[in-house]
């Protein structure tokens, strides 16, 4: 066991924010690594499990299998049908949330100390011995199909689907992992059993436990939950390049307000410039009301309720993306302003004042995230997924502080490419058509 006691410091006023998060790096008797924070003041435990693979493990022609399978984990297992299982869970006042993502599946559990033995046994049953009863499969399949139909009417989803399909045409990232009406309709019980074998495994698992427990109890619990899962899983998908050129795609949809999703390629999470890019994005559109885009698009011109940008370092591709929504007669102006700001920050960089303000916020806000057992467990699993050690919690703000003005402006010059931005607009925008964008105004 490795035990690291960490003090979370906001470095400019180190004495003031020191949330002691005592992360223990442990190995279960069965050999599964996990991180533990003992927090005995409230009698419950939060457990977070993430297994790499996810929707990308859908076999050819079986898009949506992992998603449907994860939705069925809570629909009956061993000798319990769906209702019996849920009644048992409700009687324990435990909660289990099963989710599927593009590159992982996750299990988030919360249970009382007083009945944790029963709560863990019930969760183990669900993970290792799901039934995939025919009536449950049909009921949940109908729910998934209903969600797919509903997404097809949501402007944000229409934009996202079109944007990613064009950016990653031959990769799982290019299609929604819920699948299509056709692919979901065709999934069989055998497909779900296969998806379970492929995606719920112990070879690429990350585990965090926070709450009223100790290393021995938690280790035994993790072995009970995961020890009998398959030890191998299929290889994950391949890395892929962002394949969408600059320009506009307009998708006609009858709504008074257009939504736009925009972006271009980005930066890997382990790139040496990642922290400079993170600070840069905060100044451009990642921060709150103070970001340049919020100031220019919302505060000065009233063109939108919200505009924001994100660095998205996914497992197999990296993006910088953003979103905005404006009335059909104003979205073209909002896009003009965004492009002009993109160009301005790439060419002129940021000011020392902006950099200092961004650093103070980013370092000061970090400890605020550690505000409960569940959030701490999620943070710890997220760190494991990108190969960070427990000491990242203490060093992270130093990485932010080390970013210089030169770093940010150097990264801005190569990372932010206004001519490469592609805007996918859903609505009935005035003055916008599919095709290349005109030269940036004011440049």
């Amino acid at each position, binding site marked *: 066991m490795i035990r690291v006691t960490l003090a979370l410091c906001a470095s400019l006023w180190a004495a003031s924010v020191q949330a002691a998060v005592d992360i223990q790096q442990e190995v279960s008797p069965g050999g599964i690594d996990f991180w533990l924070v003992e927090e005995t003041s409230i009698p419950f435990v939060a457990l977070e499990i993430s297994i790499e693979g996810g929707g990308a493990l859908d076999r050819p022609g079986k898009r949506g299998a992992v998603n449907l399978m994860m939705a069925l984990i809570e629909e009956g297992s061993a000798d319990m049908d769906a209702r019996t299982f849920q009644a048992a869970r*409700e009687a324990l006042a435990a909660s289990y949330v099963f989710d599927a993502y593009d590159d992982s599946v996750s299990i988030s559990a919360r249970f009382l100390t007083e009945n944790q033995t029963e709560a863990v046994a019930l969760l183990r049953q669900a993970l290792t011995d799901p039934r995939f009863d025919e009536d449950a499969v049909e009921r949940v399949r109908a*729910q998934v199909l209903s969600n797919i139909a509903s997404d097809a009417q949501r402007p944000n989803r229409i934009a996202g689907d079109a944007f990613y399909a064009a950016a990653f045409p031959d990769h799982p990232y290019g299609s929604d992992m819920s699948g299509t009406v056709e692919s979901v309709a065709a999934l069989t019980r055998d497909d779900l059993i296969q998806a379970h074998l492929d995606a719920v495994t112990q070879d690429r698992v990350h585990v965090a436990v926070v709450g009223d427990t100790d290393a021995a109890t938690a280790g035994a619990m993790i072995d009970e939950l995961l020890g009998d899962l398959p030890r191998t899983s299929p290889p994950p998908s391949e890395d892929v390049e962002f394949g969408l050129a600059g320009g506009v795609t307009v998708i006609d949809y009858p709504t008074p307000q257009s939504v736009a999703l925009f972006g271009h390629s980005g930066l890997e999470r382990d790139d040496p410039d990642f922290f400079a890019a993170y600070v840069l994005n905060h100044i451009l559109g990642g921060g709150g009301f103070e970001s340049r885009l919020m100031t220019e698009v919302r505060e000065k011109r*009233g063109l939108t309720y919200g505009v924001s940008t994100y660095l998205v370092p996914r497992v197999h591709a990296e993006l910088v993306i953003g979103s905005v929504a404006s009335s059909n007669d104003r979205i073209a102006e909002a896009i003009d302003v965004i492009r002009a700001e993109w160009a301005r920050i790439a060419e002129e960089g940021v000011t020392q004042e902006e950099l200092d303000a961004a650093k103070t916020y980013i370092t000061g806000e970090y400890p605020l995230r550690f505000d409960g057992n569940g959030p701490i467990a999620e943070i710890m699993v997220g760190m494991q997924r990108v190969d960070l050690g427990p000491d990242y919690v203490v060093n992270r703000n130093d990485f932010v502080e080390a970013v210089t003005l030169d770093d940010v402006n150097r990264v801005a010059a190569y990372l932010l490419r206004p001519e490469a931005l592609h805007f996918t607009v859903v609505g009935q925008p005035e003055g916008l058509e599919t095709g290349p964008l005109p030269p940036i105004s004011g440049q």
Partner: protein
Amino acid sequence: MIRVMFLPFAMLLTSLTAAVAKAEEVTTFALDNGMEVVVIEDHRAPVVTHMVWYRVGSADEPVGVSGVAHFLEHLLFKATDTLESGEFSATVAANGGDDNAFTSYDYTAYFQRIAADRLPLMMQMEADRMENIRLTAEDIETERQVIIEERNQRTETSPGALAREQIRAAQYLNHRYGVPIIGWMHEMEALEMEDTLAFYDLYYSPNNAILVVAGDVYPDDVRALAEQYYGVIPAEPDLPERIRSEEPPQRAERRLIYEDGRVSNDYVTRSYLAPERDSGAQEQAAALVYLSEILGGSSFTSVLGTKLTFESDIALFTGAGYDAGSLDDTTFSISVVPAEGVSLADAEAAMDQALAEFMEEGIDPVQLERIRTQLRAAEIYARDDVDGLARRYGAALTQGLTVADVQAWPDILQAVTAEDIMAAAELVFDLNQSVTAYVVASREELTQ
């Protein structure tokens, strides 16, 4: 980033508002100028949540200026005598904190989450904007556009949100709960500076406000700071008694059809006028919390889920919702999204039959005890979320409840009996106080 949170889904969500902190962690007192103070201690992390809640929301607005409470909330991030426009949030951010605000029918609240030693600065700035905002004509013009875009984003682009507006407008014959928090578009477009300042001058006063400080703080320190920053603000002598137009007896069942081509799954939903938590009399509301859970809480074990999804193929989804926290009459609602091939009329008939059977069969004692256990556990889980506790107190104190009511609520919930629940159901399920809505992509499908 979201500046404002609404509670527009209250009708469709079930509220499990069971949890409070242990009484000894909560301290309350009042300042001489009438401002109430609630301190919730949680020393696990050196962080504080600082909130000021005003006992004024959209349901307190004058006729003709719907949306002014929410508009004013946006404008409080503009300039004061000593801060430039935007400087408030910039200062919070520069100190490593987050800030925001939200407006509902009964309250408007402002909050910051930040390192505990920054509390004095937060109080100084929040006290400043309680009496010193300085708006310009340009602020009004641009921010009015922002709230219009907000309405576009939240409401105009969402058939579900538009349907809920129509349902509430039909549910409330006389009370302002029938008017949307964000306002009707045509009135929002006409909001002027005088409207916002009249509202501000009257209602943004210490004797109409509640300070909630939660986190790594001690009551004596909070008291000293509160007296220093808020205690010097004079009380508003003309603050009116909070009297709002109440509902008359409702005597007619209302039925709506909302047609919108963007609806992907047609559904039927019905809301009934229902009693809310009242100070010293929360028992009926507690029974309705259980009723909501019994009928629609769990999609697997609830009455509607069991009867319409498992024992028949009527429904894809079912639900029940009850919003116990409200100053005036609230609503209890049930909804069914029919399975493919089932008409809304058949779905509604099946929903009514399920209700009738429930009234006949009564409550499964095993289900009742499961829900009781979950409500008790919710108290334990809630202690992990000090922000949530702060909101619980702030909301309750602006909705006519006292700290004692908040602290009594978990025990009142635990004491609810099957008889209480059935009596509450008898009271609430009165079609003459109900609105039944069909939300459809195409009206033509109703006749097929």
